């Protein structure tokens, strides 16, 4: 089913210096503590991180529980904020496709799509033989998910010892890490434009609609970046 050698190779890739492990742990410690504060028990907290494994969605769920939003509202809000996972999947999975792998495995392995694992894979896929890329990816995803779940549990247990300023400190780690990653990814005109326009339009569209700003801003910026980048190459 899964090639153990490549799975383990993927699993240990989280140890690298550019690894998202620190950022991932910091933000899920904060989520674990937040879950405890709003009244979830330890099983529910772990269950939530294990099943959702996408930070902005979990944050929205937590806030919705506080204000008592309806399930439909939660669904729509989470879908909107996590819809970015769609282009992320489409920009990664074609690289992992191989006819020897069963289809079902792709539908299960896509659960690991979250920015941290996605970035490791984008950086490393070329070094992995195509046939085993999916196994490598499952290893990367499992490693990231283990960090996320352990950090949630840890955050839950130390919640009473975290004051407000510490929570704020933990909350900035992830955005800072990913800002660095995005700046590091600006290697071509196309990528630089995608990142710069994405940030600018994300903010501009916030004034039009806070719910839709990520999708509308991202879509407009990405499309502009694509066309300008393509025309500059030819």
């Amino acid at each position, binding site marked *: 089913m899964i090639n153990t050698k490549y799975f383990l190779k993927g699993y240990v890739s989280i140890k690298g210096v550019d690894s998202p492990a620190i950022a991932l742990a910091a933000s899920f410690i904060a989520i674990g503590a937040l879950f405890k504060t709003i009244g979830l028990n330890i099983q529910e907290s772990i269950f939530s991180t294990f099943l959702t494994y996408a930070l902005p969605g979990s944050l929205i769920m937590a806030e919705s*529980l506080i204000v008592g939003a309806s399930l439909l509202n939660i669904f729509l809000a989470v879908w909107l904020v996590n819809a970015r996972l769609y282009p992320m999947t489409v920009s*990664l999975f074609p690289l992992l496709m191989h006819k020897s792998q069963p289809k079902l495995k792709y539908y299960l392995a896509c659960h690991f799509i979250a920015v941290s694992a996605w970035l490791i894979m984008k950086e490393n896929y070329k070094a992995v033989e195509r046939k085993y890329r999916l196994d490598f990816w499952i290893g990367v995803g499992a490693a990231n998910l283990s960090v996320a779940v352990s950090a949630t549990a840890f955050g839950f247990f130390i919640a009473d010892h975290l004051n407000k300023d510490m929570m704020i400190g933990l909350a900035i780690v992830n955005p800072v890490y990913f800002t660095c990653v995005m700046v590091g990814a600006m290697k071509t005109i196309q990528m630089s434009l995608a*990142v710069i326009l994405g940030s600018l339009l994300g903010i501009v569209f916030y004034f039009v609609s806070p719910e839709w700003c990520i999708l509308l801003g991202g879509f407009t910026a990405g499309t502009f970046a694509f066309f300008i980048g393509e025309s500059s190459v030819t």
Partner: protein
Amino acid sequence: MSLNIVLAILVTSLATYISRFLGVITSNKIKENSKIFRWFNCLAYSTLSALLARIIIFPAGALAEVDYFIRFIVVFICLIIFLISKKNFVYPTVLSALFLYLLSSNF
């Protein structure tokens, strides 16, 4: 476990999984050297950047309690550290928590 919370967790996971699932369906039809693949790559990076900008400028949760200016300064300083440390990810991430902790507890 309380039913409300379990339902909320299930709904959240489902809403998240849908985008991943549809992504795999689309991936089946896309070649990695095609233009449409490059377009999706731009979309992935631009939506991530839009999300990041939103989190930093209009945050939800704990970050919302810090002044906009302080958040901006911390991100800016960390980015400078990242660039002068030859793109080391550990220094800016660890220091960001420390800077913001110090700034938000003193101002």
